[in-house]
């Protein structure tokens, strides 16, 4: 469970996160929606310690991780969390399987001889058999996302954080990534936090959605509740996005 209380983060003069409080239950798929530049990525990076909040508390399984942490404590957080970067952030000097195995060295006690097997197994889970030796430059956008997912799940995290997992993908590949997220959540029993402005994705797979605007939560609840929200900003956002998607 992640319990966030009154989280504040400023990039002066801009207030990026302005008092965010929410609870992410273990095992659920939690989506964060909102227009660009409202601090969604900033929020996600606070959860894994890439960003330090100015104030507020983040309780990860009961422990506050928002303050000053030692390197050891940070490492414990990283063991619990996998992060999927927006553009994948794959290491282009390494091949596919080396990317997937990268986190094993410092986050697990797995023996180095087994890295390759573990990488292959994870690649199979995301539907990428036989691509172990490909270079990163040889991958399509969808494949990159899947390799990045394999890399994030390889150390066996209990939380997966996704930053815009379907942005920049064609609808079919996007659909496939959505299915993978659902699958990971069920098979690995992980808690998923998804930052997205893909309304279709959020509505389809989320248990709960929070809508960000200007660094604040303006609506939070089940997909049904968001759909029926009375808030004009939310309504406008949903309408515009569904028009683009061309359905519902």
């Amino acid at each position: 469970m992640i319990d966030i209380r009154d989280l504040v983060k400023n990039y002066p003069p801009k207030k990026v996160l302005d008092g965010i409080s929410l609870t992410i239950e273990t095992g659920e798929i939690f989506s964060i929606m909102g227009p660009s530049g409202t601090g969604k990525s900033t929020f996600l990076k606070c959860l894994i310690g890439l960003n330090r909040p100015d104030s507020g508390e983040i309780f990860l399984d009961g422990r506050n991780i928002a303050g000053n942490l030692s390197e050891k404590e940070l490492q414990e957080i990283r063991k619990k969390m996998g992060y999927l970067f927006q553009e994948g952030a794959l290491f282009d000097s390494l091949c596919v399987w080396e990317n997937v195995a990268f986190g094993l060295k410092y986050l697990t006690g797995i023996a180095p001889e087994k890295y390759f097997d573990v990488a292959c197994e994870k690649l199979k889970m995301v539907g990428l058999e036989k691509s172990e030796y490909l270079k990163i430059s040889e991958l399509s956008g969808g494949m990159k996302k899947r390799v990045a997912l394999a890399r994030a799940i390889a150390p066996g995290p209990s939380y997966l954080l996704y930053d815009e997992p379907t942005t920049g993908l064609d609808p079919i590949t996007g659909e496939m990534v959505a299915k993978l997220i659902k699958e990971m959540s069920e098979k690995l029993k992980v808690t998923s936090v998804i930052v997205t402005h893909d309304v279709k994705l959020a509505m389809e797979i989320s248990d709960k959605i929070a809508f960000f605007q200007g660094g604040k939560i303006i609506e939070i609840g089940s997909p049904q509740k968001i759909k029926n929200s009375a808030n004009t900003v939310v309504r406008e956002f949903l309408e515009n996005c569904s028009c683009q998607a061309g359905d519902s």
Partner: protein
Amino acid sequence: MIAVIGEKLLALAKKLGQTYYMTASALAWIFLAPLEKKEIVKQTVRIGVQSLSVTSLTSLFTGMVLALQSGYTSKSLFNEPLYVGSVVGFSLVKELGPVLTAIVVAGRAGAAVTAEIGTMRVTEQIDALYTLGTNPSSYLVIPRYFAFMIALPVLTVFSDFIGILGGFMVSSVKLSVASSVYFDDIFNYMEVKNFMHGFIKSFFFAFIIATVSCYKGLYAQGGAQGVGKATTESVVSSMVLILAIDYFVSALLVAVGIS
């Protein structure tokens, strides 16, 4: 006006602070995490191979032109080319070998390091390193410090030899100096401390190039354009710093008797 100067000074102080932080944390991580030996070897080989042809050409022609200039100057003054080997040898070993090699390496390998790390920064690969439990200092910065500290002195010694060889070619072909005279002029007067003077300086230059190129890469921002800007700045800053530090380290070495 004063506000602008103040702003610039503040920005400079911030940069110095960040550089200090990066260097200090790299030093700390040498002891905190096991050394990435594979990375060190890989980077050393890469920097050496990348730079070898350019540094060789640079020092070859430097040796050649030194022989030509000193030979003809002394010919016009004394009617014969005197001490060509000494001029070429001392200039190269003490000064031009280390400095020119460092400048070429800054332009070739230093720029490559900044571009690589800068690209990793703007594509979130540095953040990805963190989330996967790897500290960028121990994985990226330290191996490159080691690589420059190993590769640059080796390249410098190599340049010294090539330069002396270039001088030899010109002095025997164009100036008709006997080869024994040329080499006697070098080795009768050259002492180990003369060589050490240049050799020690190359370690300082390596430190500068590693610090500047890693720093500029790590703090790059703003997409591909930002990486380009960081790369240019990296080369320019390295060159200026190399030439400035060269004077002070030379003075220091002279003061302690390694001249």
